[in-house]
């Protein structure tokens, strides 16, 4: 197990290094001069020169790369050109919205999807299963921004249970924050839950056809006990894979939902940074997202090994 963790950790670090090099090259080297890109076509040469100086672009590439990477380690991500504040502050603010939202949505979707998938699998081919599968089909098909507006219409405008958008900040109290994130989380969770429920169902069905399920039944376990004790853990592996992918998606892919609910999240930050050519922000946010995704994948790998003893020996 230790060996497994060490190899995974090594590959995590190497992936991050490789990603940082790629991001650095794409943003700073390939498109030409960063300063003129950031200032636009009609910029005065003096302004460009000043910005180059400010950004330290006159140093050789490898020095700039090292400065950037060492900055990442100390939390110094540079200064945003458009907002004129440190990038780390920008990211921290947004992360406090995006991370709770992603976790909230993922928790919702997992708590719905796994039981629903299991129920559908144990009643495969029956009315319950058909009904659940129909609903998940709908959940996948309906665009989440449309569903988000639908939620706002009912729960914010008509019933007034939840605010229709915006985020008060966690200083206003935990409860206020959770209330503000509830509708966006549901809007995000429905699609994810639908996908995960289908994966859970098919993984469980496949597991239920395995020989060891028959062995368990021959021991005297009831159908229910068999599902809980033997099928569930084995069906978990494909579900974990989906879980990892969904978390990565939810962290940065919630741009549209963030826009519908006027939430100041990471998705919106990166969108705005790109439209305003704020490459300093883009570089750091992308690096942060890579870090998050690689870390989540690492955690998923660890979870695999925890679930399946066969993976522990393999590196």
């Amino acid at each position, binding site marked *: 197990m230790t060996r497994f963790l060490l*190899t995974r950790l*090594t590959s995590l670090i190497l992936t991050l290094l490789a990603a940082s090099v790629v991001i650095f090259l794409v943003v700073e080297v390939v498109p030409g001069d960063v300063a003129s890109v950031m200032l636009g076509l009609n910029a005065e040469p003096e302004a460009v020169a000043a910005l180059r100086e400010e950004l330290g672009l006159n140093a050789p590439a490898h020095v700039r790369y090292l400065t950037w990477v060492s900055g990442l380690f100390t939390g110094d991500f540079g200064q945003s050109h458009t907002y004129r504040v440190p990038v780390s502050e920008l990211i921290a603010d947004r992360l406090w919205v995006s991370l709770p939202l992603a976790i909230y949505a993922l928790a919702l979707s997992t708590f719905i999807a796994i039981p629903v998938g299991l129920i559908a699998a144990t009643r495969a081919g029956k009315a319950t299963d058909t009904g659940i599968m129909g609903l998940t089909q709908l959940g996948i098909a309906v665009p989440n921004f449309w569903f988000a507006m639908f939620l706002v219409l009912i729960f914010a405008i008509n019933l007034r249970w939840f605010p229709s958008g915006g985020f008060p900040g966690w200083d206003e109290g935990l409860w206020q924050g959770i209330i503000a994130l509830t509708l966006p989380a549901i809007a995000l969770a429905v699609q994810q839950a639908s996908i995960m429920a289908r994966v859970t169902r098919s993984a469980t069905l496949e597991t239920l056809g*395995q*020989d*060891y399920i*028959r*062995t*368990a*039944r*021959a*021991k*005297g*376990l*009831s159908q229910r*006990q068999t599902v809980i*004790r*033997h099928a569930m*853990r*084995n069906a978990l592996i494909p579900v974990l894979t989906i879980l990892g992918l969904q978390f990565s998606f939810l962290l940065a892919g919630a741009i549209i939902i963030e826009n519908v609910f006027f939430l100041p999240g990471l998705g919106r930050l990166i969108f705005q940074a790109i439209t305003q050519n704020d490459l300093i922000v883009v570089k750091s946010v992308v690096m942060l997202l890579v870090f998050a995704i690689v870390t989540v994948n690492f955690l998923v790998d660890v979870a695999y090994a925890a*679930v*399946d*003893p*066969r993976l522990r020996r*393999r*590196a």
Partner: protein
Amino acid sequence: MIDTRNLSLSIGETEILHDVSFSIAPGEVFGLVGESGSGKSMTALAMMGLLPSGGIATGQISLEGEDLLHLSETQMCDLRGRQLGMIFQEPMTALNPVQTIGDQVAETLIVHGVAQRSEAKEIARERLNRVGLTEDRFPLSRYPHELSGGQRQRVCIALAIALRPKILIADEPTTALDVTTQAGILELLLELVRDEGMALMLITHDLAVTAQIADRVAVMEKGRIVEQNTTRTLFETRKHAYTRALFAASTHQPSREARVEDTPLLSVTKAVRDYRLPRRTVFGKTPLFRAVNEVSFDIRRGESLGLVGESGCGKSTLTRAILGLEPLQGGRITLNGDDISTGMTPDLRAKMQVVFQDPYGSFNPRHTVARIIAEPFHLMGRPVDAEDQIARALTEVGLTPDDMRKYPHEFSGGQRQRIAIARALITRPELILLDEAVSALDVRVRAQVLDLLADLQASHDLSYLFVSHDLSVVRRITDRVMVMKSGEIVESGETEAVFQNPQHTYTQTLIAAAPAIPEDWTHGAQDAG
């Protein structure tokens, strides 16, 4: 003790079992033999109350006076594991891969409320010791993937007998195992019957296994028991035509005469194949595993050479190396003097074809038979009369040219194996490698395919390399045989000479472990063709 009367079973419209009646006494070994699809396993599942959904059983199955068919699911759950134990064919997949063997054995005790966790573990330990898995090598914390097939089957037996059931149903318990492992498992089962007074119902397609351990035997055909008697009487008298047919097929000797020329067709000289194992440290040397160790032999023109050995001995690796599918790390293999390698010319490849074991997995289900058979044409360019050649190949293997337009699922296992042989014949090869080619077939079908192979050898001047773990089959179809163990050929010689007078201790062990019908039982009755 267990008494089955007029058991009939249908699933939907299909009738699976008709009036199946038998009874098994305590301490008795009852053999149920028959070919695949005869209803043996369904009989067992009906007794366990584990029929597939839609299965409706009528009649009576009484265990000590209680009719199992009229019990509720809850009552059956209580009975399963406690009174009725069952083990299955495929030990590799019969255990939950994510639970330790200790937990899986203990679970039988825990679900029946017989013992609490810690006590259940102690009993599990004792039961695992009983099946020969001792604590020093097999602690309770082992996972199934750390065990071999035979060891896993022992775990399955341990969890089935954890509560000392009155009857243990064993459905093809040794079919997937090597002969020496099979001998060990059969011996263990017999010991358990003797020591625990348990009844054993042994379901198998293998007459020799039945002859060896059963007290009584029932023969099943198409959902009916056609004959049952004490084992010896049944084997000696063989009253029913089907019994005679099965018996004849399992000892069938294809008529063939050796027309071996003295020129070598395939020469293997000091062939070495190493596999890389995972590195132990990040920058350490890659450890190697030598699967084939300096193996040398020739196959002469017209010869049929057997290659026997247990799983993991390297026979499949050697087969793949001969086909040029694996690179060698030493030595050479030549066909007609031309070097065989992974980059050999299509012409050379066309001279050598292969038939694999699994007639279900080796075809693309979406291709027609014509397309499957024509596949090797890519080696030599599609001839203008391709269709005629396909038709001829089909006829040669006993199918009809009309079968060309059908798909694999429309054929039985034996017919599919014929299609595989047709595909091998299409390039007019000189050598065909038969890798366990008849191992998955029922005895009667196997006899037919062996006949076909013998006929084709004569009509097409073919040489065979017959790779199998089944000694009795190899004995019947080969001129010479090689015995392989741990990557080396430990013995080789004329087939009959090796079988009658094995020199190497390993060959002796293999031959001794292979079950056989006693000689003096085989006379007496008139065998059907």
